[in-house]
């Protein structure tokens, strides 16, 4: 813990600052992680969700 922390205000300033930096870094990191996770998906579907006409790209609508 930092030696310069003497008051609740300083404690809150320190912990909240670190948390905000962590969150900002994580949000940026998530973008790259998502690209890493899904860049090889042929149809870029979300978690393998069914899409209307997903396998027949460009034809639109579900085909039965």
């Amino acid at each position, binding site marked *: 813990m930092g030696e310069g922390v003497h008051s609740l205000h300083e404690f809150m300033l320190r*912990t909240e600052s670190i948390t905000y930096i962590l969150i900002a870094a994580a949000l940026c990191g998530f973008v790259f992680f998502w690209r890493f996770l899904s860049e090889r998906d042929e149809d870029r579907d979300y978690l393998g969700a069914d899409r209307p006409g997903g396998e027949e790209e460009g034809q639109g609508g579900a085909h039965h």
Partner: protein
Amino acid sequence: MQFPKVTLERPRWTPFNIVAAIIVVVGLVITGIRFTQGLAATTRLSDYNPWGIWIGFDLLVGVALAAGGYVTSAACYLFGLKRFHTAVRPAILTGFLGYALVVLALHYDVGRPWRLPYPFLVQQGTTSLLFEVAACVALYLTVLFIEWTPAAFEWLGLKRARNLVVRLTLVLTIFGVVLSTLHQSSLGALFLIAPSKLHPLWYSPYLALFFFVSSIVAGLSMVIFEGALAHRYFHHKMDETHRREADGVALGFAKAASWVLAGYFVLKLVGVAQADAWHHLASGYGAWFLLEVVGFVLLPCFFFAVGAREKNLRIVRFTAAWAVLGIVINRFNVGLIAFNYHLPAEERYFPHWMEIGISLFIVTIGILAYKFIVRHMPILYAHPDYEPH
């Protein structure tokens, strides 16, 4: 269309059956001792350590690993991911058995088990988190039982009852998700009343969130892990649709699990930052915490992502077992290892062999029940007389 019936001559005394029989016999003997001579004869519980592995493992781990039921049914019926439909029945069955065994384990752990209904019938402790957990577990066990009954009704040929329950699917799914959200998080919140007993690296105001988010990982990983085992040992019971969709389920769930694990890892870091507990990382407990967070959260996250990206089922299935072990370690840490960390070594809890025996007994009962149900009921195949729902 003929009912697909496979009759295979199986040897009765396989190594699994022999080990299971021994565990069941020993478990029954310990059960007799527990209910005739009390907790003192069978456990090392004390005033310092009132919760042992019957809570730390059977309840905390059991509830987390049974989360596959609500995760899979929510994915299929609420988010419309119908490709995961074949995973719903096995996941519901595992969830139902998991919760039933949690309640069974509670009968061993609670001093006066016949008073388990008291919170509902005699005195409602509505300000207690334990009351909320008890209410949610009781209601969710009922929901899981009803969600499981279509398979039993199909097996028994009760068409009208089956069709009636199937019509309730969406309502039951919503109810199940709400109840799971409540009690999975409340199990973590239970430890909020003991900030001085739980090590600062594990204690956090976000404990409820940690437990809920990690339960999603546990549910996804268990569905993949259980699917791999079913593929290996009950392949003959799976129909063509289940075999075809199994790989898609594993890859889709691996992708979701890696995404949730990434979020969980960041939440754990935020927990340390908010408590300003960084200096604890340089201690022995810090090394153990880092092992949990890096070895059983960050690395499984990465390997799930690699497995999903490369469509490599071996990596995905191995990582699922790894993530399940990580959840077990996390619940052990919060409930047992990092709890009462300040006590001298001689006061720390280590389970009596009979406690371990009962935990093994309960897990074995679950496996035997799963085997019986999967062999007899349409869990891994669609009954030809009924439309899938």
